[in-house]
């Protein structure tokens, strides 16, 4: 073995490199301090010389790195452009499939986010992205990957291109019909889903497709919050949220009949659609796991994480839906200042509101329990908090209530220990509640 050589030292070699840079004007890039270096992981079966596979790997790397690197994104777009041009002259060398066209379109769609702040109009990015989808579909008719991607672009386009420009005074004449635009997205997603299932392409029910549903969920939240006062981008305190009774007025804004978001705000169609499709998505993830003989519960594989993410989202959506009936019940049952209790609120009597809320929270818990992960104390606390909500709906001191509180306490104790006291105040509130009931 050759005798080992000796280094100069971290500081001294940096000084030497600095001097060298000063002398000849070039910079040596060391591996140690080069923060902008990017590692692209290629699948084992991928040929490292295959340019299209490299592009796919680069796209995955971009998505995995929180989508915050515009430089990489631009690189992807340039590479897509180059491959597309070359494919026209060297047809035998490149096989550009639906995946390629989808990545090209989605990369353009992502670019709109980087330019949304400083540019007035992001329309060209979305137009071009949809053009790439059409181009792809002209070669691969009905390709589910392209159709999922089309829905994704539409769900991003609505808030970024349209809603961002709207004021409470906006008029629907100034905008395209948002319902029609959205419906185009829903149709595209549904068709994609049908085709993927028919072709047994369950691998398409992956993190990237889940992002399509996520972007619709974000869009619906934006519509819900439109025109509402924001409190200096600070987070809510969990204690502030608790014990809130039903308040019809809240801080919601009544939009004019002619406002482009008016029909959306009043329709539950999109929320229902989101949940139906998310449940369907979950089933398909489970089918994929079954096919691959993967046990999802507590799996550290990416599909395990995806399954938990979807379950958590569904659980949260049921909890959110339970908020209104739960608040109505609390107000009618415990608020002594409310008059005419026999009239109910929003057509609901206390018992009815409670039954609805219990059903929804129970449903939420089922999903949140599926999202529980032995390595994630927050997931235990999420279930615990849902049990506290359920306990609050049951009669004071009832066995059901005690059971709920006890399940919550066990999880919170564990989560609190694992997070060195992060849930201390919630746990104390719960114990206080249990003590008050005694």
């Amino acid at each position, binding site marked *: *073995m050759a005798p*080992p*050589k000796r280094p100069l030292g971290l500081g001294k070699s940096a000084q030497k490199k600095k001097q060298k840079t000063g002398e000849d004007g070039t910079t040596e890039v060391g591996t140690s301090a080069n923060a902008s270096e990017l590692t692209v992981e290629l699948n084992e079966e991928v040929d490292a010389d295959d340019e299209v596979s490299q592009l796919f790997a680069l796209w995955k790397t971009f998505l995995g790195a929180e989508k915050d690197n515009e430089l990489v994104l631009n690189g992807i777009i340039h590479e897509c452009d180059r491959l597309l041009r070359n494919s026209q002259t060297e047809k035998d060398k490149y096989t550009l499939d639906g995946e390629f066209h989808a990545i090209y379109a989605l990369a353009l769609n992502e670019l709109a986010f980087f330019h949304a702040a400083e540019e007035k109009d992001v329309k060209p990015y979305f137009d071009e992205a949809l053009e790439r989808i059409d181009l792809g579909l002209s070669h691969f008719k009905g390709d589910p990957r392209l159709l999922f991607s089309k829905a994704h672009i539409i769900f991003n386009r609505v808030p970024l291109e349209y809603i961002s420009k709207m004021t409470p005074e906006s008029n629907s004449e100034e905008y395209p019909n948002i319902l029609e635009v959205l419906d185009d997205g829903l149709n595209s997603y549904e068709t994609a889903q049908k085709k993927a299932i028919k072709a047994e392409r369950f691998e398409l029910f992956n993190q990237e497709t889940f992002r399509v549903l996520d972007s619709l969920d974000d869009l619906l939240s934006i519509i819900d919050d439109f025109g509402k006062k924001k409190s200096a981008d*600070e*987070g809510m305190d969990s204690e502030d949220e608790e014990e809130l009774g039903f308040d019809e007025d809240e801080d919601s804004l009544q939009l004019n009949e002619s406002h482009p978001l008016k029909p959306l705000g009043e329709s539950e169609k999109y929320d229902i659609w989101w949940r139906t499709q998310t449940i369907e998505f979950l089933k398909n993830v489970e089918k994929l796991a079954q096919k691959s003989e993967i046990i999802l519960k507590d799996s550290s594989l990416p599909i395990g994480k995806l399954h938990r993410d979807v379950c958590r989202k569904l659980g949260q959506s049921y909890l959110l839906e339970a908020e209104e009936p739960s608040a109505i019940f609390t107000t009618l049952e415990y608020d002594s200042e409310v008059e005419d209790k026999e009239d109910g609120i929003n057509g609901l009597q206390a018992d009815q509101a409670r039954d609805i809320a219990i059903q929804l929270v129970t449903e939420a818990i089922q999903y949140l329990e599926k999202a529980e992960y032995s*390595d994630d104390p927050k997931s235990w606390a999420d279930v615990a908090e849902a049990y506290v909500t359920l306990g609050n709906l049951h009669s004071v001191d009832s066995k059901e209530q005690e059971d709920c509180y006890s399940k919550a306490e066990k999880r919170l104790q564990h989560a609190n220990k694992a997070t060195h006291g992060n849930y201390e105040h919630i746990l104390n509130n719960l114990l206080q509640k249990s003590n008050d009931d005694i």
Partner: protein
Amino acid sequence: MTTKRANSTSKAATKKQDITIKPTIDEEAKAKTYFNQEIFDDEYKNGLQNSIKTSKPYHWGTITELMNDQLLRDVRSEILSEIVFTKKETDIYKVYQSGDLANMSGLNWDDLSRLPNLYKLRSAIYSKTFRDYISYVTGCGKLSGIKTDMSINTYRKGCHLLTHDDVIGTRRVSFILYMPEPGKTWKPHYGGSLRLFDSIVPNVPKSDFECKLTPQFNQIAFFTVQPGLSFHDVEEVRVDKHRLSIQGWFHIPQKGEEGFIPGEQERTEARSTLQQLESKGLKEYDFPKIRRNEISPDDIFHYDVDINKNLKLSQQDITYLGQFINPTLLNTSSIEKLNESFVNESVIEIQSFLNNEYAGILKKVLRRHELDGSLPQKQDEVEFPWKLAIPPHKQRYIYMDGLDEQPIDNADTIDFVNHVAPQELPNFGMTSKYFNQMDSAQSEKKHEFQEDSGYLASSKLCELASLLKSIAFKKWLTLVSGLVVVRDQILVRRFRPGQDFILATQLDKTGEGLIDGILEATLNLTPSSGWESGEVGGYELCMMSNDDNEEDDDPAIYKQSENDEDVLYTSQASWNKLTVMLRDSSVLKFVKYVSFNAPGSRWDINGTWDAKSTD
């Protein structure tokens, strides 16, 4: 990441010029009306004076409703709409800071008209009325009205300021006026509290805080700056809320002002913490001791004798090392490649250092202990074989050094450890076996749901520390680094969320016959994920030390490099990565404070070696 250099334990104070604002007679007269008038009642004032006199751990006071409420609300709105905050992060703090307000009177009229209420507030704080008030209640002596020193900070989620005593230049009284959202209670679990530390002896703060103030809107806290005593920190803000505050100092009177004493300024400055930190005596209270033990010449012989000829790992070496280390790192061609990289960069990172089987078991054991064990929060909760690294104006973490228990909770026990107690050499192998037996004994009695004692985690980690002490490992290290190591110190370290860090330190000069600098290896063993962005801290950072122009520096100036090029190396907390570096004396290194919201602790095994000079 915008980490910049910090050269000591002092607070962020960018280079400031002496400020000269002189309130007009009109402003002085108005100043008193800007305050809550009740604070001027004699009964209140004398009550405050008494409470400060008897306060612990040193003289400090607080007023809950200081200003006219509406004025301060207006100031807050003005700040939020007009001032831009920038995130600043060094080894000692993370905070969003405004620019320096001190020069505000020098701004043009347009700017002043943007901040009229802030201008009123500043003139009130530095008015003679209020300076005399502070002087009276604290008994600190006269305060300057012309040298003002204020900045606006907002502590958002993850922001913190570690322990320091505020002793810089001519500061006499520190104050913080708090402005979280008015009308809402700032709750203790939000974090962001001001915590005061008692001292073991002057200049050495205790590791646990003595008292804690959870601040509310319009509350001011203040204390006399007392060299070596007034240690305090700002607890990390744990939730997604903003704790806005105005931080500042009253300085000693300047020439021409009432209370000016010739020579006082120079004397005050001479007591600067920066100088005190450099005094050798203070290291008495540093634990762990930086003490690299001599390696026996007989052992060195095994890897020194053939270094320039045909040194290689024997089959026995490979079998032993292979129990722990990834076998691909033990073959000749890998070792030669590692050596080549190391020569070029003076630092190498080796991913998947431990073999899969060993790493898999270890990761489970550590993570289980994190999730199901107790995390010591105070000094007396740290149990052997773990020990607490002190003092907290330099470091806080827990560690195993392979040595016996060392009680270090007060000056007497520290004195005993330093001057009386047996001085033995580390024995990780024995520690590992002992705790493995403890674990087995406990496992036999284990109930279904039981807290994890951490015995197995400690045992496994000591086993690895023992590996680093082996002749075979030193031979491998010689082949990779090209250096012959002659002294070593191995520490197993755990940096707990919401608690631990090491501030920037520079190496002492090494002894005769040794190379300048040390060979350092860190085996990263953080079993949780989510550290990659550096947002939750826990990273190790090396940077160039810039002490060339030391003579020009005013001690009041906190050195801060604006140049990211000075960062030589950053390593996020991670799993199963070995970093080897040759750190020479020009390199500063720190481990960033681990956020309360970090996914777990940062764990590592740190080895440092002196190497033989061949010159």
